[in-house]
């Protein structure tokens, strides 16, 4: 079964010796057959090497390969320059040399059976299952053109040109015909998914380019299989016996093989999705289904002699959405890790055995002209093919493929283990020069993987970055540069995605209406909708209308009621089953093509002027939010989505929502008065500047209204049931907490557009809502009121924490007087202690500010108690300190 298993016990043993350093004594004991039946008596310990040999050797190989990976990564320098695949090949060569030296027989080679049945499927399944679908289908046309036409072109031109040169006599005397050359051309033509991924993962090219090369390497399998089979049978038939009918059959078989393979994949994906819908009570074997059914799709199409790679690719592509939604979070994690592990191990083994297989003098037949010309032809024709096809494509494509992209496309046409396995499969009796083909293929594979793999990274960087000068980017450049990145990605989102079209709309409609209903659990459908609401659609409108509703009803309590909590109280903690897998892509949904941005990928070189500067730069470097292009990985075989991104997204998301709510509230308040909120606001601001003695500005009638609301809110909120768990609540609290913000930013900018005096003076006006929300937050947990009081109590005595408390969470002081007047009375929950405060707070806003300016520690000192008490959120959910303080910070 395992072709790489040893052929005889002694050989396996030698291997064991070479690899694991097993005790030599043990080896001596176990001469062939030695362990068995030598002595009649009962053996306490028997050494049965032959018994465990095969699996043992396999396990040892895997161990060696894995250890080698650890070894490679010990040196960061090496791995950052040399792709892992190249290192593995070299390692394989060394190990092969050792084995050969010990044995003089190439015992371990990469056999087609092992490769196609056990090593390739996990890799392709992984590729399909984690395929960025939208991107893939968005570029499907281009991918198909490259995969089909490009591969045929490569095969034909390479084969024919080699034949032409052969006719000229440059290669000397070979037993070879036109069909042999075409056969060779067809197996060497295909870009290899394993090699391409291994190299491209380390070269960070833009997503469109990546998906084109990646997709091409996966989809060209059908073409390769057909061409290979056709020419092999032609060779077997003999050149003279090939008729036109056979050629037509060949073309027909292409459609059967490719479409059939795809269909098998889709059918199995359907099955898989359906099965996972009903695994609620067998969670533990859920992940198994994913692997088994996908593997069955591969085997089935292999059985029907269809394209197995297409089958398993499409199985992965089609099932991912439903499976991810159906299986539990733990299962999803298991699937992800297992899949990555399998794929990564398989890849490691493939490259290592490519190296090992090369150490076998019996397969080497050297023909300089043939080898070199093959190398030249595949590179040249690949480039020509790419240019021609791109020229054609660019007439229809939205996102043009620039010359640089074409270089990368041409240069990224790596050949790999598929070609090797195919060439080994050849029948030596029919193809007379099999060995020449094998050795040439090995050379080609090594050349592309090692040489091109090594050079593509510098090439891409060199092409993209005209590094005119090495200088340290100044602070301004760093900051604004990053800002530009954000601006760019925002504009991309606004200007829409590529290939947004009718078909996609129709499909998503069909999916929502039928497929999802059949294939997804009901709970999953719901939770998917919920996530859609928040992350994809970002249904702020809903949220806002809820708040508005709350105001109308005079209560925010219903926001927390279970029936509606999916709108407002969203769980922002990562939730891998659906969120993790889909969020990054969901967020991507609106995303259009992204420009190459190699510059930002590059480490920014710095020469540090002085220590302080270094700190500043470092802080910026480290904590500036990263723009999307940089941190969203498309697909990686070796890495899982880092959680950092989500944290960042959550952080920004919270801020954004809070600010939007603020500005929403403020515009709403403004609208009550006047449609032209902005103008009013400006006038108001101007007036306030002139006459700061008017406590309530121009909005005298708002306070009573607001106060009334507060009271209601407090009443309603205080007797609600126990809050659900706090992780769940965090979103809601934040949302509510955002109401607590002093909504000084009436400005249409919706931002913290207020200047300092405004902040101080407008607070009276906004005091009530602030207090309201503070109060609203209180009943989240019954103890909180008590806790809130504590830091406040000493406020009159010690000025430092008091103003902090005040401006942070409530700023109620100036609001007190009007609150009392209408007789509404302060809210029962927070009333008493707030009443005690006015004297302290009313002292002077200016004094407070002066004071806070002086104290450097102030911001931290004042926000901690407030925030912690406010909601007792888990630390991860705390609002960003400065974000919360934005308006208060005086200048």
């Amino acid at each position, binding site marked *: 079964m395992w072709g790489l298993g040893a052929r005889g016990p002694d050989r396996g043993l030698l291997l064991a010796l070479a690899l694991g350093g097993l005790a030599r004594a043990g080896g001596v004991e176990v001469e062939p057959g030695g362990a068995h039946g030598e002595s009649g008596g009962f053996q306490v310990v028997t050494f049965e090497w032959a018994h465990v040999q095969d699996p043992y050797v396999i396990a040892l190989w895997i161990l060696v390969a894995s250890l080698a990976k650890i070894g490679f990564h010990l040196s960061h320098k090496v791995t950052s320059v040399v792709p892992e695949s190249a290192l593995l090949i070299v390692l394989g060569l060394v190990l092969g040399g050792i084995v050969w030296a010990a044995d003089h027989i190439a015992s371990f080679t990469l056999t087609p059976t092992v490769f196609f049945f056990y090593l390739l499927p996990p890799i392709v399944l992984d590729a399909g299952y984690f395929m960025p679908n939208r991107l893939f289908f968005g570029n499907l046309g281009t991918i198909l053109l490259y995969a089909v036409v490009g591969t045929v072109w490569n095969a034909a031109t390479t084969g024919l040109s080699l034949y032409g040169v052969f006719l000229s006599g440059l290669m000397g005397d070979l037993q070879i015909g036109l069909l042999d050359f075409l056969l060779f051309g067809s197996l060497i033509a295909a870009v290899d998914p394993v090699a391409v991924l291994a190299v491209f993962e380390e070269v960070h090219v833009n997503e469109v380019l990546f998906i084109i090369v990646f997709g091409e390497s996966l989809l060209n399998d059908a073409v390769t299989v057909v061409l290979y089979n056709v020419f092999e049978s032609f060779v077997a038939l003999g050149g003279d016996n090939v008729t036109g009918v056979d050629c037509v059959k060949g073309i027909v078989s292409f459609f059967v093989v490719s479409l059939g393979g795809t269909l098998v994949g889709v059918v199995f994906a359907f099955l898989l999705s359906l099965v996972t819908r009903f695994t609620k009570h067998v969670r533990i074997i859920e992940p198994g289904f994913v692997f088994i059914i996908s593997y069955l799709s591969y085997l089935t199409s292999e059985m029907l002699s269809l394209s197995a790679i297409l089958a398993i690719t499409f199985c992965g592509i089609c099932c991912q959405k439903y499976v991810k939604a159906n299986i539990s979070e733990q299962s999803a994690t298991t699937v992800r890790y297992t899949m990555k592990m399998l794929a990564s191990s398989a890849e490691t083994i493939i490259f290592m055995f490519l190296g090992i297989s090369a150490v076998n003098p019996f397969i080497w037949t050297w023909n300089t002209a043939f080898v070199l010309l093959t190398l030249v032809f595949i590179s040249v024709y690949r480039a020509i093919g790419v240019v021609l096809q791109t020229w054609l494509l660019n007439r229809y494509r939205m996102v043009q493929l620039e010359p640089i992209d074409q270089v990368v496309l041409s240069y990224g046409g790596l050949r790999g283990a598929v070609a090797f396995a195919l060439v080994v499969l050849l029948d030596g009796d029919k193809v007379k020069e099999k060995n020449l083909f094998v050795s040439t293929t090995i050379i080609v594979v090594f050349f592309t993987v090692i040489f091109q793999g090594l050079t593509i990274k510098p090439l891409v960087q060199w092409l993209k970055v005209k590094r005119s000068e090495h200088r340290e980017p100044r602070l301004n450049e760093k900051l604004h540069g990053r800002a530009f990145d954000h601006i760019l990605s*925002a504009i991309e989102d606004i*200007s829409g995605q590529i290939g947004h079209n009718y078909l996609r709309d129709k499909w998503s409609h069909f999916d929502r209406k039928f497929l999802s209903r059949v294939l997804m659990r009901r709970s999953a459908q719901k939770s998917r909708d919920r996530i859609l609401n928040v992350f994809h659609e970002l249904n702020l409108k809903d949220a806002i209308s809820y708040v508005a509703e709350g105001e109308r009803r005079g209560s925010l309590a219903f926001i927390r009621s279970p029936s509606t909590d999916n709108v407002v109280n969203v769980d922002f903690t990562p939730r891998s089953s659906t969120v993790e897998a889909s969020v990054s892509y969901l967020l991507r949904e609106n995303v259009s093509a992204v420009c190459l941005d190699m510059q930002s990928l590059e480490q920014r070189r710095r020469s540090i002027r002085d220590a302080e500067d270094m700190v500043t730069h470092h802080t910026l470097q480290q904590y500036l*939010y990263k723009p*999307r292009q940089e941190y969203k990985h498309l697909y990686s075989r070796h890495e899982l989505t880092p959680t950092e991104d989500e944290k960042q997204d959550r952080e920004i998301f919270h801020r954004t929502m809070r600010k939007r709510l603020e500005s929403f509230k403020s515009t709403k308040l403004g609208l009550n008065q006047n449609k032209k909120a902005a103008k009013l606001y400006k006038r108001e601001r101007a007036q306030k500047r002139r006459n700061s003695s008017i406590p309530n500005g121009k909005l005298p009638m708002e306070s009573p209204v607001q106060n009334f609301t507060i009271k209601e809110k407090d009443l309603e909120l205080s007797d609600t049931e126990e809050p659900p768990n706090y992780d769940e609540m965090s979103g809601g609290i934040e949302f509510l907490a955002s109401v607590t913000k002093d909504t000084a930013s009436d400005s249409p900018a919706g931002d913290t557009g207020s200047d300092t005096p405004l902040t101080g003076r407008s607070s009276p006006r906004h005091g009530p809502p602030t207090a309201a929300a503070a109060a609203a937050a209180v009943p989240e947990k019954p103890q909180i009121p008590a806790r809130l009081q504590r830091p406040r109590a000493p406020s009159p005595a010690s000025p430092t924490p008091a103003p902090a408390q005040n401006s942070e969470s409530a700023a109620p002081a100036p609001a007190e007087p009007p609150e009392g007047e209408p007789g509404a009375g302060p809210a029962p929950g927070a009333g008493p202690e707030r009443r005690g405060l006015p004297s302290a707070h009313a002292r002077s806003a200016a004094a407070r500010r002066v004071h806070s300016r002086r104290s450097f520690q102030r911001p931290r000192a004042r926000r901690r108690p407030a925030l912690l008490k406010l909601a007792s959120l888990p630390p991860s959910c705390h609002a960003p300190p400065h974000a919360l303080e934005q308006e208060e910070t005086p200048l």
Partner: protein
Amino acid sequence: MGSRSSHAAVIPDGDSIRRETGFSQASLLRLHHRFRALDRNKKGYLSRMDLQQIGALAVNPLGDRIIESFFPDGSQRVDFPGFVRVLAHFRPVEDEDTETQDPKKPEPLNSRRNKLHYAFQLYDLDRDGKISRHEMLQVLRLMVGVQVTEEQLENIADRTVQEADEDGDGAVSFVEFTKSLEKMDVEQKMSIRILK
């Protein structure tokens, strides 16, 4: 999502928009399509809410500011020409743009100067033609993670302003802003390929 690409509706004033923004016919059609897709209730204009619905913008630190940039002077709606005009800043600079520079015509929207100016007005909230230290601080707050303390931020803001500030008024004017970025390839960094 009843967006039909088939009825590639007539764009009102298509030609004049094209002249002003330099977009190709195809891009304009596509953007119009996008515009209508964003316009949820077929109002014929976009409100802030329409743009805020774009999920990815909520996790963009500058998302809301960029949304605001579509609504100059506090207006509540943006029509298609206005929408395209903003996007035109991000059209890649092409050779013909620089060649066929008509001195009489106004500078194209995608010139380096205009690209920078677009960025500048995202910072300059009070429209006084200067990025004050306070405004710089606000942008920094948006763009830097929560781990950085307020003190550090203020420090960074100070340094950033100082670095660019040449006339010593404690704020960055547009000229100074341009100057501080003169080494940067703004044309490339502020262009989107799909906006041709």
